[in-house]
C-alpha cells in the first residue's frame, strides 16, 4: 500500500515520535509489539467478535434518497452513528483495550473532546473491568454534558482540563502528563490518528473496518466496490482515515476531508488546520499545526467539540502534501444547517462533527449520477443543547 507509514514512523515528511524520554519505554513497547499482537489470530477473533456482538457491526450503508434528490447525487450514508455508544470512536477503543490487556496494563487513560471517545473508552473499560480516567476540557464538559454523565455512569473518572482554551488540545496535554507520571501500569488510548508513532497507524488500522465494510456493501449494492467520492469530517482524522483507508490506493475514488472553519477561515476563530497550519510538532508527531510565527500553538475554535483541535493526523498532512485528498471546510452555520437538513430529510440527527461532512458536499464538484459515500461518524444526541441553542429550525 502506497500511503503506509514507513519504519521510522513517517508518512512522507510527517509523523515520527517526538516524545519526552519519560514516555519512551511505553511508546517503544507499543511500537515493537502492536503489529504482531493485532495481526495474531487470538486478537482478531476477539476483535471480530466484539465488533459484531458488542459494537453492532457491520453498520448499514444507507441510501439517503431524499438527501440525494435535494443535493442531486447518489448519496450513501455510512452509519457509524449506529455503533454502540453513538460514534465510530468505539472501533478504536475496542482494539486498543484488547491490545492493552495483551500488554499487561491494568489502567486506562484517555482524552476526549466531544466526549464520544471518552464514552467509548469508559465503555470498553467497563467491559474489561479496567480502571478508567478521562481528561476533558472544562469548556467541553459544559457543552457535551450528557457524555460526561454517561462516562460517570460507566464508572469512569472525568477530570477537567483547566489550561489553554480548555478543549481537546488541553485535555490531551493533561493525559500525556498523567502518562508521564504513571508509565508502568497505564495504557493511553488516544482517540484519533494523532500522537507519536505508532498511534496514527494503529488507530487508522482499527478504524479501517469502515472502508472495508463500505467496499463489500457497495459490491452488494452496485456490483463494484468503488464510490466516486468518499467524504468525512476531520478533527484529528480518525473517522476519515477509516473511511478512506481501503480506497487510498484507488486513485479514481475522490477523497474529501471536511474541516471545521468555525466562524470562517479568516475570522481568527477556526479549526481549519490544512488552510491555516504550518508543519510543526505537537503531541508527539510532526504534522500540520495552527501556530504563530514564534511556534506557539493557536487555540482553535469550532462549534463542534470533536473538531476543535489545532492539528491533524500526520497521515492526513501527507495526503494533502501529495494531493491524494481534497480538504475543504464548513463553518459553524453551514454545519448546523446541514445537520438540521439531514434531520428533516432522513430522520437522522447527526453529530455536529458529522454535519460538517454533509455541509462539505457544497464545496466539491460532482455529477448527478456520482455515487458519494458520506461517513456519518456519529449521532447528535450529545449535541441537543447546541442544536436547541442554535434554534433556526
Amino acid at each position, binding site marked *: 500500500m502506497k500511503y503506509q507509514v514507513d519504519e*521510522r514512523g513517517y508518512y512522507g515528511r510527517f509523523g*515520527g*515520535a*517526538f*516524545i*519526552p*524520554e*519519560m514516555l*519512551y*519505554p511505553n511508546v517503544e513497547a507499543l511500537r515493537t509489539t502492536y503489529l504482531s499482537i493485532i495481526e495474531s489470530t487470538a486478537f482478531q477473533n476477539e476483535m471480530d467478535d466484539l465488533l459484531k456482538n458488542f459494537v453492532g457491526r457491520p453498520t448499514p450503508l444507507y441510501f439517503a434518497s431524499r438527501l440525494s434528490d435535494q443535493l442531486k447525487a447518489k448519496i450513501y450514508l455510512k452509519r457509524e452513528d449506529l455503533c454502540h455508544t453513538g460514534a465510530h470512536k468505539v472501533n478504536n477503543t475496542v482494539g486498543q483495550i484488547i491490545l492493552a490487556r495483551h500488554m499487561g496494563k491494568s489502567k486506562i487513560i484517555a482524552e476526549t473532546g466531544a466526549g464520544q471517545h471518552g464514552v467509548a473508552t469508559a465503555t470498553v473499560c467497563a467491559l474489561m473491568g479496567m480502571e478508567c480516567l478521562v481528561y476533558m476540557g472544562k469548556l467541553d464538559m459544559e457543552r457535551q454534558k450528557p457524555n460526561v454523565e454517561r462516562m460517570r455512569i460507566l464508572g469512569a473518572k472525568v477530570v477537567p482540563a483547566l*489550561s*489553554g482554551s480548555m478543549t481537546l*488540545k488541553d485535555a490531551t*496535554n493533561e493525559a*500525556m*502528563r498523567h502518562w*508521564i*507520571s*504513571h*508509565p*508502568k501500569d497505564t495504557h493511553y488510548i488516544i482517540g484519533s490518528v494523532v500522537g507519536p508513532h505508532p498511534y496514527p497507524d494503529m488507530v487508522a488500522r482499527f478504524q479501517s473496518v469502515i472502508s472495508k465494510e463500505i467496499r463489500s456493501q457497495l459490491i452488494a449494492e452496485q456490483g463494484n466496490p468503488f464510490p466516486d467520492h468518499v467524504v468525512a469530517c476531520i478533527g484529528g482524522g480518525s473517522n476519515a482515515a477509516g473511511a478512506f483507508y481501503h480506497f487510498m490506493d484507488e486513485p479514481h475514488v475522490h477523497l474529501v476531508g471536511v474541516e471545521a472553519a468555525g466562524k470562517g477561515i479568516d475570522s481568527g476563530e477556526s479549526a481549519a488546520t490544512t488552510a491555516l497550519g*504550518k*508543519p*510543526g*510538532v*505537537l*503531541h*508527539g508527531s510532526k504534522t500540520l*499545526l495552527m*501556530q504563530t*510565527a*514564534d*511556534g*506557539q*500553538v493557536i487555540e482553535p475554535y469550532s462549534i463542534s467539540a470533536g473538531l476543535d483541535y489545532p492539528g491533524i493526523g500526520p497521515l492526513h498532512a501527507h495526503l494533502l502534501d501529495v494531493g491524494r485528498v481534497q480538504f475543504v471546510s464548513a463553518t459553524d452555520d453551514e454545519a448546523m444547517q446541514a445537520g438540521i437538513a439531514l434531520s428533516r430529510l432522513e430522520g437522522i440527527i447527526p453529530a455536529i462533527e458529522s454535519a460538517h461532512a454533509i455541509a462539505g458536499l457544497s464545496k466539491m464538484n460532482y455529477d448527478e449520477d456520482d455515487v458519494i459515500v458520506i461517513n456519518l461518524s456519529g449521532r447528535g444526541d450529545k449535541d441537543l443543547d447546541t442544536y436547541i441553542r442554535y434554534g433556526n429550525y
Partner: protein
Amino acid sequence: MKTLEKENQTEELFKRKNKNLLSVYYTAGYPALNDTVRIGQWLAQAGADMIEIGIPFSDPVADGPVIQESSKVALENGMTLNLLLEQVGELRSGVKIPIVLMGYINPILQMGVASFCERAAHAGVDAVIIPDLPLLEYQESYQGIFESWGIKNIFMVTPTTSEERIRAIDDSSSAFIYVVSSSGTTGARKDFSGEQIDYLNRLKQMKLKNPWLVGFGVSNKTTFSTICDYSAGAIVGSAFIAMLKNSNNFSADIPNFVQSIKAKS
C-alpha cells in the same frame, strides 16, 4: 557554518568541578518580560554553577503546574524565542557560567534549527535540553547542525529508561546527562523515596562516562544534599520559580535562595 572560537562553558565547568553543582532553571520573560537578564546575573553572583533558561511554549507536556504557569505568563508578557536570544546575548556579556536553554522543539523548528543554532551560538548558549526531541530524531536530522555550532544537546534518563538505553544515551552525550529523579512532570516533591535512592545507586554503579545532574523535584537543601551524594549535582526549577513569583526583592531573595540550598549544614 563553523564553531565559534571559544570553549564550551559546560565542558569547562565539569573540568573544574564535579561535585555539588547547582544549576538553576527559570523561565525567560517571567515574572516580567525583561527579568531574564537580571535574574541570570543575580544567580551567577550568588554562586549558581549553571543557568538553565526555559523557552516558553504553549503546550509544555513534560511540565508540572508551576512551570506551566510561568510559561503562560511569559507568553502573555510577549516573550518570543527571538527576544530570548537577544536577552541571552546581553546576559552572556557579564556572566561566565554555562548557559543552557531548555524548551520544546516546535518554536525551534519554526525559527529553523540552523538559524536557531547560529544565533544561540552567537548569543553564548553552551547547550540545549529539548525534552521532546528524542535521541534518534536528533541523530538522524539535527546532530550535524548542533555540533557545527558547538552547542551540546543534553539528553534525559528516567527511572524507566533501560540500562541498554542509558548506555546508548551516555555514548551519544557530551557535557552532561540530565537525570529525571522520578516518573513525573517537573515540580517539587517533598523528599526522595527508597525507590528513587535505589535508582540513583543503580546509576552510580553504572559508572557513566558523562557526569550527571539530577532534576525534577529538587527543591531545598535536604533534597539537594541527598542527590549530591550520588551525582555531580542537581537542577532546581519549580521551587525557584515559585520563589520568584512571591519575591519583590530579587537582589536579596535570589542570593538567599541559592545559599539556602548550597549552604553546608
